[in-house]
């Protein structure tokens, strides 16, 4: 099962590094604006985004047939993040996630399985072959990127945990530590962040646990040290900084669905025909583009691989 390298991402759309390099310098000079802003409260004005410096290179990463051949730049991927534990603004995680301590890191495995345990991250990674997986990434907010993740199939780890026949769903819990995560001091969302997948979705070969980006250790703002990538689903399904994996019988109540059940579903499959109540999902903006002119693909272009998981399901109802 190979994903054809997508011709729908022309090289002209790869983000220029220059774009994001010295925004900060410029911002400092805009003091008059800053004063005006201060008068009415610091607000949405674009703040300097701070891309991560490149981390340690990961060894023995092999290429994957699941990859597309285009990518968004490191600078963009690491300076534009939806990671509410570090603030609701997209440039905040790059600044505020520095306080996150990712070593040591443990992942608790609980619920319907034969091997419940608290795993050290090293044990989660032991024996895994890391792969480069360049995935299209589609946010529910109708923007998209192409991201070269480094990771391994979640299925490999799940098998190791030996889920029982009662395990129908997998629930992921992200770290929520007000000491390290400024955003969790404010009840903007019900913390901790919870996400979930149906067992067959979790076992699908496209679903990976991510530990790296561009061959380097995953930057904190992108959900280090361990996050999920489920490329046919909207970005909010990609649980970050995972500390707990629980096998459960009932469908987990994922955070955004809890926050707004009319707007965010459990499945959250990318679907151009099912609009978000507040905007159309038919098209998207491939960042850093300005125009919302790219046709969104069913299952984010991974329909050949995953459509069978949902045969017979009403995708409008199960959005």
């Amino acid at each position, binding site marked *: 099962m190979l994903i054809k390298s997508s011709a729908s991402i022309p090289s002209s759309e790869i983000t220029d590094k220059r*774009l994001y390099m010295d925004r900060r310098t410029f911002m400092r000079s805009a003091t008059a604006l800053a004063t005006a802003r201060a008068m*009415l409260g610091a607000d949405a004005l674009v703040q300097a985004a701070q891309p991560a410096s490149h981390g340690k290179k990961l060894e023995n990463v092999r290429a994957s047939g699941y990859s597309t051949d285009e990518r968004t730049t490191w600078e963009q991927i690491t300076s534009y993040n939806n990671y509410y534990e570090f603030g609701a603004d997209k440039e905040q995680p790059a600044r505020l996630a520095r306080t996150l301590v990712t070593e040591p890191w443990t992942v608790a495995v609980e619920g319907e399985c034969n091997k419940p345990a608290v795993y050290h991250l090293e044990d989660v990674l032991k024996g895994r072959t890391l792969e480069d997986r360049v995935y299209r990434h589609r946010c529910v907010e109708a923007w998209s990127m192409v991201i070269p993740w480094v990771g391994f199939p979640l299925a490999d780890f799940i098998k190791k945990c030996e889920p029982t026949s009662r395990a129908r769903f997998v629930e992921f819990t992200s770290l929520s530590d007000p000491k390290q995560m400024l955003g969790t001091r404010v009840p903007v969302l019900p913390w901790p962040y919870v996400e979930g997948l149906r067992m067959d979705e979790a076992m699908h070969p496209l679903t990976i646990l991510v530990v790296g980006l561009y061959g380097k250790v995953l930057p904190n703002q992108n959900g280090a040290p361990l996050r999920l990538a489920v490329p046919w689903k909207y970005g909010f399904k990609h649980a970050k900084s995972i500390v707990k994996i629980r096998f459960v019988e009932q469908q987990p109540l994922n955070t955004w669905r809890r926050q707004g059940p009319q707007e965010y579903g459990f499945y959250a499959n990318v679907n151009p025909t099912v609009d978000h109540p507040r905007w159309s999902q038919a098209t998207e903006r491939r960042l850093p583009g300005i125009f919302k*002119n790219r046709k969104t693909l069913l299952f984010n272009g991974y329909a050949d691989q995953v459509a069978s998981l949902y045969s017979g399901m009403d995708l409008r109802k199960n959005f």
Partner: protein
Amino acid sequence: MTSNQTVRWVAKPALFLGSLAPAAWLVVAALTEQLSPDPLADITNETGVWTLRFLCITLAMTPLRRMTGWNGVIRFRRMLGLFAFFYGSLHLLTYLVADRLASLDLPAGIAWQTVGALANATLPDVLKRPFITVGFASWLCMLPLALTSTAGMIRRLGGRRWQLLHRLTYVAAAAAVLHYWWLVKADVRRPETYALVVGLLLIFRAWWWGRSARAPVTRRVAA
């Protein structure tokens, strides 16, 4: 220089340039590639937030005048209001072009069909999505105010009727706050701040009207 001349040749031009600064900054930032990886979001947010700010500032002129007794501030109100309309129009235009127009399969060149197609792509969106509905309503409220902002129009309408019409500013500001509120995903603290500011500015008016209505009675008693 008389104070009249100072207002005309110094204060007003300075205010004009200052009010233009956010737009100028956006243009410079866009041209020099200083915006975030999602430039459209930046442009949309900035123009939207500045609309709201100018509405607040405009609405603050009358309370400021009442409280300070400085009647001169009223000479800046029109320009500030027009800047609210200016930023609101940029905001609307961004949505029309980058969101609606871009989502269409366009034949080469812009033709009349394009305008029709744009209207077809926009109207259902405006009607279907409440946050866009109120945002658009806010702009629609500002439109007649901008059109009747000249001295000639004030004369033609007559001061009383003109004043009544221009109370639409209150509706525009309230709708703009609602638009912002319904737009954010989770963290409503910023829309709350604007709601508070607009709320206070409107409450001040209610209080002032209540006071002036009572005033003659009070005077009689005092006399």
